[in-house]
């Protein structure tokens, strides 16, 4: 055997050194996770190649945002005309049946009750708003309906297969190295592969992502991810949509757009919309379920909920309202008088007829110019009365 170390050995050593140096350069330039950069540097140098392997596999953030400037990314979250074009469908049935029904649904997390004996009934073809404060159990309810969690007790009856459910979680995320087109096409392929490939691009256009179809989603803003999640949810043409806070990450224009989309879907889909934004529910939902601390406090038509709520009125006059407010408080048919803004009063009354007769008279007695006198019962009032 020879005594000289051949060049090949030094080549291997040189390659290893080059890889180590390249890793350190990459470390300086890249974002890292799990450990700080200095710790990764020590690990790479002290335990080559083990440290290098760990850095490449675990520490390096390969899915850095795409080179889309922040301003451009923000632009893509802005308003885009959404025109939802549903696939051809037959005429709607005459009989309204419950497409989702739960019975005695209870979910415990240790000793904490997340859902308590909930009997949810969602009629087919309706838009059902599930409202409640944060932590009320809305997400747990939708997760159980979607099959992502199991109830502690009780039953869930679905009138459709699980693959006919379109589910949008509240903070959708995707593998960052996929493009928007691939994400939606994967969803199409898994849920309804009979639909043509063109459906993918069509749905991406409809949610306002036409210009970014071939960008990797690692660089998407939260609003764009929410749109993408909605596209992935809709592409398979599901019969039932479970939408958890679908507009929470969107700007006002985007929120308006999503609500319009949900409103259009309501004509041919069953939609369960979970939100704590009551105005959204009031705009698009026919039915409402009010949930608080795991209990379903009300379920039925939105109009019925508003009708059974205390009658409230808003009064807008010009001039100081202190004397008028005192006079109204002295009346036996008022239970609450508040001044939300100068010149404005909000009354909660026990006798609507007397209020409508007496309030204009009292305003006249106080010689205050009347701007408006309107009923002011809204979902927020109803919600607060139910949950307080």
């Amino acid at each position, binding site marked *: *055997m020879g005594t000289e170390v051949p060049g090949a050995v030094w080549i291997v050593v040189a390659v290893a050194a080059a890889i180590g140096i390249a890793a350190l350069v990459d470390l300086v330039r890249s974002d890292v996770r799990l450990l700080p950069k200095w710790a990764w540097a020590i690990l790479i140098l002290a335990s080559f190649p083990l440290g290098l392997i760990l850095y490449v596999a675990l520490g390096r953030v390969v899915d850095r945002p795409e080179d889309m400037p922040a301003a451009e990314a923000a632009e893509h979250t802005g308003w885009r005309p959404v025109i939802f074009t549903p696939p051809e469908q037959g005429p709607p049935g005459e009989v309204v049946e419950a497409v989702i029904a739960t019975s005695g649904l209870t979910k415990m997390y240790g000793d904490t009750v997340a859902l308590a004996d909930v009997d949810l009934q969602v009629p087919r073809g309706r838009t059902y708003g599930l409202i409640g404060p944060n932590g009320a159990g809305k997400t747990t309810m939708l997760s159980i309906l979607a099959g992502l*969690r199991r109830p502690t007790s009780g039953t869930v009856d679905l009138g459709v297969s699980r693959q006919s459910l379109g589910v949008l979680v509240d903070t959708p*995320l995707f593998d960052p190295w996929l493009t928007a087109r691939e994400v939606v096409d994967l969803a199409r392929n898994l849920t309804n592969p009979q639909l043509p490939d063109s459906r993918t691009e069509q749905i991406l256009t409809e949610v306002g992502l036409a210009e970014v179809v071939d960008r990797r989603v690692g660089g998407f803003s939260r609003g764009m991810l929410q749109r993408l999640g909605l596209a992935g949810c809709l592409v398979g043409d599901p019969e039932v949509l479970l939408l958890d806070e679908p507009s929470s990450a969107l700007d006002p224009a985007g929120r308006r757009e999503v609500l319009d989309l949900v409103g259009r879907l309501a004509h041919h889909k069953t939609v369960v919309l979970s939100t704590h934004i009551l105005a959204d529910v009031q705009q698009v939902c026919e039915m409402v379920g009010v949930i608080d601390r795991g209990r379903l406090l009300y379920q039925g038509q939105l109009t019925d909920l508003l009708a059974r709520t205390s009658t409230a009125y808003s009064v807008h006059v010009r001039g100081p309202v202190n004397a008028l407010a005192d006079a109204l408080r002295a009346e036996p048919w008022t239970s609450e008088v508040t001044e939300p803004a100068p010149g404005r009063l909000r009354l909660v009354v026990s006798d609507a007829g007397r209020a409508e007769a007496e309030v204009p008279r009292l305003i006249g007695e106080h010689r205050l110019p009347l701007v408006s006198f309107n009923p002011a019962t809204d979902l927020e009032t109803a919600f607060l009365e139910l949950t307080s």
Partner: protein
Amino acid sequence: MNLWKLELARLTRTYRWMLLFGVYAFFAVLGPLSARYLNEIIGQFGGDVTIIAPDPRPVDGIAQFIGNVSQLGLLAVAVVAAGALALDARPEVAAFLRTKVSRAYDLMLPRYAVSTGAAIGALLVGTAIAWAMTESLLGSLSVGAMLVGTLYGALYLVFAVAVVAVVAGFLRSQVATVFGSLAVLLALPMVALIEPLRPWLPSELLAAIGALLEGASAGDFARAVIVTLVVTPALLALATRRFALREL
């Protein structure tokens, strides 16, 4: 895009295939070279100390390669497999897929198969390089022993990735899955200290190629092969069951 293409994209776009193939190729080159020139390398740094070692044999080149990839190669396999099989590591991503398939098995199978295929591919490439290097530097090797030994090594990787799948079924995060899997896989050879159990352990297949080149027969590993073939589907069934039952 489908679930198989998704896994291929995961392997290629995250550059994990380079990690896997790079580790195996690196040690495939380094193993035979270090076996051939170890004495000279030590001599260069040894000063006045004279080291007398037997002349390297062809089997030493492969043994060096296998010895290195038994640990660092296995680490690379665990990292790549955990990246795919820890499918609930990010619940929001998992929710997107889980709500679109009817069975956890549909998600598991492509992830397991692609990870295993990549690991076996890396082993084959590494072994081919190590074989060629050894032939040119140290001498010829038994073709039969090399082929059977490589087959056994591949079978061990089929088992190892199934272990990663099970660990991922119990631990959610990728990091925990990597270290949990390594703990299991590296602890298994310790069981071999109990001599009656040793022939039955799948870990015996990992370095079988060295023993085969030294003259062992393929039949000596029959019990380990049988255990591996029986245990691997059971591990996959357990992993699938764990994924199916786990809540997000």
